[in-house]
C-alpha cells in the first residue's frame, strides 16, 4: 500500500487523557521553540511599512496627498523583507501567524502518532474557523451580493455595498430564490417539514436537467468524437506502423471498458472476457493516475516542509 500520510493509530493513546507523556512533549517543544527563537530566529517576520495616500481631486483619485482635495485616504502597507533590510521591523502579528501556522501544522502532523489532544485541538480550530469563514463568505457572496442587491438595492447600498451602481434596481426574479430559501428554512419549524423538500427537489431536479445536457455533450458525444481516429495512420513517409497500433489499442481499450460498464448482462463468456480486458485497461489507467496523484501529494508535503524549515525555522 502506498499510503504514506496516515499510519495505524495507536489505540493505546486514544486521546482521551492528557497525561504526563503529553506534558513532557509540550515541555520539549517549548524548550525547542525557545532555542529555535534565539538560535535560528525562527518564525520572525520582518516588514517594511509604507504609508500610501490617495486624494480625491475633481471626481478622480490621485496618488499622494493633494491640498484641497475633497477627500483623502491613507493606509499602511507592509511588505515582508529580510531582517537586514534598512528600516525593517519585527512584525508581531506576522510572527505570531507563522508560529501559529507552524504549531498547527505540527499538531496536524502529530496524527502520525495517533489521535492526540494536539490533533484534536488543531482539528477543532480548523473545523470551527473554516465553518465560520464559509458562513461569512456565503453571507456576503450569496445573500448580500446576489439576493439583497437585487431585491433592495437602495438599502443594500446604504449599509453594505457602497459601490453599487445607481442603475441597480429591484429585480422581481430574485423573489424566487428568496421564497425557496424561506421554504428551506421551514425545516426549523416543528410542523410542515415537507415544505423544505420542495426547494431541495427544485435544486436537485434543475441540476439533473442542466447536467444531463452538458454531460451528454461533453462526456458522451465529445468523448466519442475525440476517440474516432483513423486506425491507418500515415505520415510523411506513408503508413506508420506504431501509431496505427496505438490508435487500434485506444479504440479497443475504449470498447472493452465500455463493455465492463454494461450492467444489464452477466459478465460471462465473450462479454466476460471483453470486460476483463476492459478491467486491465482501467487498471493501467489507474496506475498512471495513482502515480500522478502521488507526485502531487509529495509536492504538497514538500511545500509544508518548506514552510516549516524555511519560513519558520529559518533553516533553508
Amino acid at each position, binding site marked *: 500500500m502506498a499510503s504514506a500520510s496516515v499510519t495505524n493509530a495507536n489505540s493505546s493513546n486514544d486521546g482521551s487523557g492528557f497525561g504526563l507523556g503529553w506534558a513532557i512533549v509540550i515541555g520539549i517543544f517549548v524548550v525547542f521553540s525557545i532555542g529555535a527563537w534565539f538560535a535560528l530566529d525562527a518564525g520572525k517576520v520582518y516588514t517594511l511599512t509604507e504609508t500610501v495616500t490617495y486624494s480625491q481631486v475633481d471626481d478622480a483619485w490621485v496618488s499622494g496627498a493633494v491640498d484641497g482635495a475633497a477627500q483623502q485616504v491613507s493606509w499602511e502597507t507592509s511588505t515582508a523583507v529580510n531582517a537586514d533590510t534598512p528600516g525593517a521591523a519585527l512584525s508581531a502579528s506576522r510572527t505570531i501567524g507563522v508560529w501559529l501556522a507552524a504549531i498547527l501544522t505540527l499538531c496536524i502532523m502529530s496524527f502520525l502518532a495517533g489521535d492526540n489532544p494536539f490533533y484534536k485541538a488543531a482539528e477543532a480550530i480548523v473545523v470551527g474557523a473554516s465553518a465560520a469563514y464559509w458562513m461569512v463568505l456565503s453571507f456576503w457572496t450569496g445573500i448580500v451580493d446576489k439576493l439583497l442587491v437585487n431585491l433592495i438595492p437602495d438599502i443594500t447600498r446604504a449599509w453594505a455595498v457602497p459601490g453599487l451602481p445607481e442603475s441597480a434596481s429591484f429585480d422581481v426574479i430574485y423573489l424566487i430564490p428568496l421564497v425557496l430559501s424561506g421554504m428551506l428554512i421551514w425545516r426549523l419549524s416543528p410542523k410542515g417539514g415537507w415544505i423544505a423538500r420542495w426547494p431541495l427537489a427544485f435544486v436537485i431536479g434543475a441540476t439533473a436537467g442542466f447536467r444531463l445536457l452538458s454531460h451528454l455533450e461533453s462526456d458522451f458525444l465529445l468523448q466519442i468524437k475525440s476517440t474516432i481516429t483513423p486506425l491507418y495512420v500515415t505520415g510523411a513517409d506513408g503508413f506508420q506502423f506504431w501509431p496505427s497500433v496505438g490508435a487500434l489499442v485506444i479504440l479497443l481499450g475504449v470498447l472493452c471498458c465500455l463493455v465492463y460498464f454494461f450492467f444489464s448482462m452477466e459478465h460471462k463468456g465473450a462479454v466476460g472476457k471483453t470486460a476483463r480486458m476492459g478491467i486491465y485497461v482501467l*487498471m493501467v489507467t489507474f496506475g498512471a493516475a495513482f502515480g500522478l496523484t502521488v507526485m502531487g501529494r509529495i509536492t504538497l508535503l514538500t511545500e509544508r516542509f518548506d514552510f516549516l524549515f524555511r519560513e519558520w525555522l529559518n533553516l533553508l
Partner: protein
Amino acid sequence: MTALDPERIKVILATDCGSTTTKAILIQYVDGAYRQTHRGEAPTTVEKPFADVTMGVINSVTEIGELAGRKLVDDDGRIISPATDTEGCDIYISTSSAGGGLQMMVAGVIAEMTAASAKRAALGAGSIVMDVIAANDGRRPHEQIQRIRDLRPDMILLSGGTDGGTKDKVVQLAELIAPAKPQPRFGSDYEMPIIYAGNNEAQTDVSEVFAEGGFDLQIVDNLRPVLERENLGPARDKIHDIFLEHVMAQAPGYDKLMGWTGAPIMPTPGAVGDILQTVARIQGINVVGVDIGGATTDVFSVFDETFNRTVSANLGMSYSISNVCAEATMPNVLRWVPFNMNERELRNHVKNKMIRPTTIPQTREALMFEQAVAREALRLAYKQHKEFATTLKGVQQQRTVGDTFTQEAGGETIVNNMTLDLLVASGGVLSHAPRMHQTAMMLIDAFEPEGVTMLAKDSIFMMPHLGVLASVHPKAAEEVFDRDCLIYLGTCVAAAGNVKAGKPAFSWSFNGMSGEIAGGEMELVDLALGETAMITLTPVRGVDLGNGPGKKVEREIKGGTVGVIFDGRGRPLGLPEDRSSCQSTVQGWIDSCAMYREEEETAAAV
C-alpha cells in the same frame, strides 16, 4: 468413564438408535487392522408400548452376538465390557436420532453473521434447526415472539455481537425469548435449556433477563468473538452436553444406555459430521457427504478443514417427493428421463409415492423416474448447501490494487467442486440402487464434480457409528471407514471450462490404455475395486481438469465397482432444451455408462 488406552481396544460395539431401526455393528482388530465384522438390526423401542431404548439395542446386539459367535449381552441384559477372548466388547458406543433427533432454535443479531454462525454450530452438532431468529430477519418483534412460542425446541442457542460489540441487540433478543416462555418438546417439568454464546460483555445482562425462572441458562465462549473468526467448539460441545443431560434424559431408557457407553451418545448427524471431518483431516482431502432420506436430505462438506452441514427439509425421496417435483419443476425432473411419460399420470404417481412412502419401484421406467427425482433433490440440496457453506460475512477485506476488479463480497461459497476429492453417498435411493453405475451417475449429475473426484457410497450406513468411534479412537474409525464403510464406486474425471460439443475435450491414459473424450461425451473404463493407477490427463486449451485450463494432470486414481468415468459434458451441466434431443442425449449417456445394462444383457442371453 475411564479413558481407555486405544492400543488395547480390540473389540468395539457400536449402535445407532434411529427413529425406526436400531443398527448395531461390531468392529474387531483382525490381522493388524480394524475391520467391521458383523452387523445386526432391530426395531427401535423408544415409543410405546416398549418405551425403553435399550430393548432395541439389546435385540440388535444379541443378533450380532449370534452372528459373531460371541457373547455380548450377559444374562441380566447388559452389554459385557471389557472384553475377554470370547465374550464382550472393549468399548460400547452409540448415537441416537430417535424421537425426531435434536431440535433447536437459534438466535443471533444479524441473520448472515452471528445468527448464521449459531446455525452452523447447531447444525454441526447434529441438530435440526427449526428457526433462526435475528434482529434483521424482517419479522416484527411480536411475530418473533409468536414464532418462539409456537416452536417447541429441545434447546435454544442464543448468540450475537462480537466480544465487546453490541450489547443492546443481544439483550433485546433475550427479551424476546424470555417472555415468550417457549416450552420444551419433552417433559414439562424441566427448564428450557438456553446456551448463550454471544458478546462476553453482555453475559450479565443476559443472565438477568433469564433470571426470572423457567430457564436453564448456560454461558459459553462467544461463537463469533470477532467477525473474522468463528469459535464454534464451545457451543457445539455444550449442545452435546445438554443433549445428553436434558434431551436424552427425557427419552425412555436413555439413562440406562448412557451408563453403558464408553463415550457420550451423539446425535446421529453430528457423528456423521465427525467421521467426515476426521477422515478429511487424516487424509488431507476435501469431502462431501450426502444422506438422502425419505423426508430430508443432509449434506456435509469439509473443505480445507472447514466443516459445514445443511439439512434440506422437504427434499426427500418419499414423504417429500412431491415437494421435490414442485421445487425442481417437472420439466427439470423429466430431462433425466430418456422416454416420454404422461405428465398427468406422473403427477399422480408422485403423489401416490408421497402418500405411500414405503413402496419401491418395480419397473425400470419407475426406477429411472425415481432416480431422476433423486438427481433433482440432490441438486437442490447441494445448492442450498453451497449457499450456506460460505466464507464469513462482515469481514474487512484486505486488498491491494491488483484486487481492484476481483472484489468478491464476503459470504462466497467455500464449496469448490474442483478441489473436491471424495464424494460419499448414503441413503436409500443412492445406496440401494440396483446398479452402482446408477449411484455414480446420480452423484455426477447432481453434484457436478469437476476434475478428478472419487465416488463412494456408505455400504450399510455406519458413518454415525464411526463418528463416535472417531472421538475415542480416530485411527480405528478411519481404518474401518476406508476399508468397510465405504464402497468405492470409482473415480470421476470431469472436464470443466470451455468444452465444445463434439470437439476433443481431453485425452487420458493409464495402465497402458488411453483414449480421448469429446465434449458432451461420457465414457466408462474399468478399474477394479482396490486397484489404483497413475493417470495422465491432457486437456485441450480452455479445459480444466484440476491444474488450470489446458494444464496436464498426473495423479493417482482409485478403482471401484464402477470404474473410471470420464465426463466430457462440461460444467455447468447443460441438457438440450428440446425434449427429443434431450432424450437422445441422456440415452447416450446412459448407454455409455452402462447404467441399466444388466437387464439388456440378460435379455440378449435368453
